[in-house]
């Protein structure tokens, strides 16, 4: 081949590459633009809440019960209620969700029955939360006679996030390479041993991440809690789960009436007195902060476990 033709084709190749690289950069620009506008909205929202709620963002706000006087009202019963509901939700949805995921992923035969179950689990994630509230009202509050209690609220939110937990757990179980399972089977391990000694420990990071993401969804849920009858004015705390004397813990709080952060916010927002708007903003900032904190924990957990296990 002549030198001139080689040069010409080289020019051609370069022109071609440059043209295609422009498309590459266009996509990067569009992607960054979209991402930053989404982030910007969140940051502006958060800063706006903090700015508006600034006068009430102090220790008294966290340690006071709600009050008719806006400047004396606090979120003590709300955040204690939210924490206890989250505790109940996590305690119920973690074992149930992980067990369901293990069954579907490791044990269930691949047939039309499991296919239907799988489709339904995924669909449940998209069911409006108020439907869960109605279900819970009929089932937990009246049928099981749990009343308008923390237990009922925790169970309701567990149902709500179960699909999220199951899907996330299945994803992380599936991420364990087949070669690792085969290695364990080849040493004579049973299916349970393979699951308990290998698959489950290696996917803990993903499972915890899914769990926390589910809880972050649950923490902001308002509709189902209103449906099952959350109160918005509670000037007492539920009985403490921890006791001074044997057996050191109590479950009496499960049966008590509750309020939660989003309920308290909703209540304040709907009041005509503008001073309550300040309270609502402050509570909103704290709730958003709690959610971001939980997501931060999820990212940290994932990072920790990823570092330890690297396929």
């Amino acid at each position, binding site marked *: 081949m002549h030198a001139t033709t080689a040069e010409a084709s080289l020019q051609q190749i370069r022109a071609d590459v440059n043209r295609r690289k422009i498309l590459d950069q266009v996509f990067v620009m569009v992607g960054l633009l979209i991402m930053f506008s989404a982030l910007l909205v969140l940051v502006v929202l958060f800063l706006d809440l903090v700015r508006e709620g600034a006068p009430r963002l102090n220790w008294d706000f966290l340690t006071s019960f709600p009050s008719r006087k806006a400047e004396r009202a606090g979120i003590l019963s709300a955040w204690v209620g939210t924490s206890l509901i989250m505790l109940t939700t996590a305690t119920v949805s973690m074992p149930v969700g992980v067990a369901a995921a293990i069954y579907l992923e490791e044990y269930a*035969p*691949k047939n039309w029955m499991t296919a239907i179950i799988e489709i339904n689990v995924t669909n449940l994630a998209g069911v409006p939360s108020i439907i869960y509230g109605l279900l819970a009202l009929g089932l937990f509050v009246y049928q099981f006679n749990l009343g308008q209690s923390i237990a009922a609220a925790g169970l309701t939110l567990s149902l709500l996030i179960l699909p999220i937990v199951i899907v996330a757990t299945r994803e992380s179980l599936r991420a364990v*390479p087949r*070669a*690792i*399972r*085969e*290695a*364990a*089977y*080849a*040493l*004579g*391990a*049973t299916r349970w*041993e393979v699951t308990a*000694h*290998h698959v489950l420990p*290696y996917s803990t990071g993903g499972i915890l991440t899914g769990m926390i993401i589910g809880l972050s969804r649950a923490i902001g849920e308002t509709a189902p809690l209103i449906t099952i009858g959350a109160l918005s004015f509670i000037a007492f705390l539920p009985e403490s789960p921890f006791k001074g004397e044997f057996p050191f813990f109590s479950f009496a709080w499960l049966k008590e009436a509750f309020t939660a952060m989003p309920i308290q916010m909703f209540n304040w927002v709907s009041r005509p007195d503008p001073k309550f708007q300040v309270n609502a903003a402050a509570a909103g900032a704290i709730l958003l902060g709690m959610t971001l904190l939980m997501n931060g924990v999820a990212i940290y957990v994932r990072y920790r476990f990823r570092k*330890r*296990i*690297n*396929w």
Partner: protein
Amino acid sequence: MQSGPSTPDNPPRPAPTHALDGRPVTPRPSIDVARSPANTEEALVVKSRAEGLSFYYGAVRALKDLNIEIREKRVTALIGPSGCGKTTFLRCFNRMHDLTPGTRYQGRIILFPDSIDLVDKAVDPIEVRMRIGMVFQKPNPFPKSIFENVAYGLRVRGLRSKARLEEEVERALRRAAIWEEVKDRLDNSGLSLSGGQQQRLCIARALATNPEILLFDEPTSALDPIATARIEELIAELRDQVTVIIVTHNMQQAARVSDYTAFMYLGELIEFDNTSKLFTNPSQKATEDYITGRYG
């Protein structure tokens, strides 16, 4: 690559019977004498025998009526082109196919001395896998410590004593020729090792439970030549201790490490013989075509 002291415990490995381009080369007689049929045949015991073994993936018949005898404490190599069923056959020995739905065995694989049929539905695959170890194509250590990797098989068998575990782990690591490299970092992750070390760790893991047969599924295909040579040396050393079946697509490797070689093609066993006989004087045309590089 061919070095290593020639002691009574560690006989020299046979020279390759083929040049790299596949042309047969004359084997060096000094090496082959020790393993010629006349010297060893009567001392050999059959460890396992496949009798009319067929295997199905759904409706696809992947293995067709295999009959083969595996000799005790010898290395048997399975060679053949990709898709010929050699790995499928190997995985019948420890019932690995049971993990895949829709598979079916036909015929028998008898394990001696107790004459149980390894592929019989009535025989528990867990029991089979407790007796027959396996080393995989890609090194697959658990993301646990080096110690726990080797100890796992023993733990599954209910061994709890720390002292016994330590003893057995050291023994297995020594047998797999990796003890010196890892003895100071048994608590490090198995994944922190190099590829070749990982594979020897996997061999140690399989050896720790004293398997009667050790299956190797192309154990060096993911490794560089130096790591490959170390694994091959190791297999040669193991020959006196355990029955080995090795799948390889590398004919030079089969010639170097094995005593017997089976050539498979399209799910059938074409020829099974002494390695030196099969590589220098194959009786089947197909075998000759394959080992001389005419196809595959």
